[in-house]
């Protein structure tokens, strides 16, 4: 009897918890604080934190990162030995959840401001420079090519894209990359304004831009079709992300499948978001998370956002020059994506100079262009490194 009690006690988490796991529980609590109190992208960060918590309580059998450590997914072993979070994690590992969420993103995005101002696309392109700068930086810090690619994509400022690429290139870094990506997205209002102000003159920041032209329904319908065909033909590896994004957008703009669009925007996106967050968080086990890599990723991620902003604003200044002062360079900062946070930051910084200047719609162009830009960058990295 006592023997049995002793045996039971020996199999509790209290008897088996490691120091590192204890730290991870505190990390989870800190992330809860950021998600709930600070409202840092809580839709993702709250499930991520809870997944991280569950994965670091010992002996639960919910998640076995080692089952996914091989090159290929061994479905037989996973089914036989896996736990709840292993099964749900298959949706990340097989690259299913991020495209499903991208269908939702597409169904919620209006590309009208981009169609009205095509030059926005160049700002969206320029901001992707942050990805590659970070990529090189990661190589310098000793990451492998794949790890560096997965780290660089944080600069895409786009959660599902980052998770998609990281799960393909460096699944062992998925946890810290996702946490960094979402945290910095939430920190955009703090990271960007000083950079934007430092790089621009008061004159530049007060530029009022011409009203955008109206965009017809036909254009909005053709846009996702044309983008899908052209981009996927050029970078086949971007098909899952670009295809999903444009499928969602086509359904939205077609106006003939509203009941599907409604479900996509709500039930589907929400369900997948929970499963994605929970399982991405669960990949962050103590051993891999509490390592030098994580600190590097946190530093590099901040760099990625900063450099992306710098590149966007500088390109904006170039367009300011070339257009004879018609383009407000601030809108370049929105090119990092982080939709719609970055566009709102542009609006806010613009109004600080001139309360009557409304840059939001002008910033939405580069903002949504940044989503396409980072999906293209992810596809390219996947194709070159995958």
């Amino acid at each position, binding site marked *: 009897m006592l023997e049995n009690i002793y045996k039971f006690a020996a199999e509790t988490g209290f008897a088996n918890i490691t120091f590192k796991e204890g730290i991870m529980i505190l990390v989870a609590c800190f992330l809860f604080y950021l998600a709930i109190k600070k409202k840092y992208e809580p839709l993702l960060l709250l499930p991520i934190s809870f997944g991280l918590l569950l994965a670091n309580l010992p002996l639960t059998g919910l998640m076995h990162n080692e089952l996914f450590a091989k090159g290929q997914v061994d479905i037989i072993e996973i089914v036989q030995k896996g736990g709840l979070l292993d099964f749900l994690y298959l949706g990340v590992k097989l690259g299913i959840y991020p495209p499903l969420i991208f269908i939702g993103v597409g169904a*919620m*995005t*209006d590309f*009208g*401001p*981009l*169609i009205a101002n*095509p*030059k*926005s*696309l*160049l700002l*969206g*392109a320029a901001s*992707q*420079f942050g*990805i*590659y700068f970070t*990529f*090189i930086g990661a*190589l*310098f810090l000793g990451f*492998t*090519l794949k790890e*560096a*690619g997965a780290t660089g994509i944080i600069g895409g400022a786009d959660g599902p894209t980052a998770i998609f690429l990281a799960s393909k290139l460096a699944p062992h870094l998925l946890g810290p990359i996702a946490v960094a990506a979402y945290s910095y997205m939430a920190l955009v209002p703090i990271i960007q304004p000083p950079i934007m102000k430092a790089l621009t003159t008061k004159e530049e920041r007060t530029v009022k831009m011409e*009203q*955008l*032209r*109206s*965009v*017809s329904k*036909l*254009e909005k319908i053709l*846009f996702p079709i*044309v*983008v899908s065909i*052209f*981009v996927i033909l*050029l*970078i086949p590896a971007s098909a899952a992300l670009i295809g999903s994004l444009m499928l969602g957008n086509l359904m939205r703009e077609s106006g003939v499948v509203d009941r599907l669009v409604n479900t996509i925007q709500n039930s589907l996106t929400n369900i997948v978001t929970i499963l994605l967050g929970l399982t991405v968080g669960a990949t962050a086990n103590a051993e891999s998370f509490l390592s030098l890599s994580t600190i590097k990723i946190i530093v590099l991620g901040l760099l990625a956002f900063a450099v992306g902003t710098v590149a966007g604003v500088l390109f904006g200044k170039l367009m300011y020059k070339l257009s004879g002062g018609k383009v407000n360079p601030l809108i370049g900062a929105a090119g990092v994506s982080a*939709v*719609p946070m970055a566009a*709102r930051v542009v*609006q*806010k910084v613009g109004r600080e100079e001139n309360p*009557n200047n*409304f840059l*939001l*719609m002008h910033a*939405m162009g580069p903002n949504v*262009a940044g989503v*396409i*830009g980072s999906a*293209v*960058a992810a596809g*390219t*990295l996947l194709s*070159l*490194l995958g």
Partner: protein
Amino acid sequence: MNILINGLQVTVIGIGVVFLVLFVLSLILELFKVLFYKEEKLKIKENINVDQQIKTSVSQKSQVQEVAAISAVMATLIKDDECIVNIRRVK
């Protein structure tokens, strides 16, 4: 050292491809404008349309943004000397 050279190549190709893709897309959109956009629509109609754009554009996220957008639209409208705006919560 080899890895860095590889990395630089990836970077050059990567940035090149991103710019190529988005630049070609911008040309396509310029073509859209030529093909599908007619200037002659009235100014007022455009205003309404912009209003519409903003509304749908922000449907994506929370109230904060909405407030920003609404105030932007309101300011636009006030500037244009059109009054009596009936504001309701956009869903």
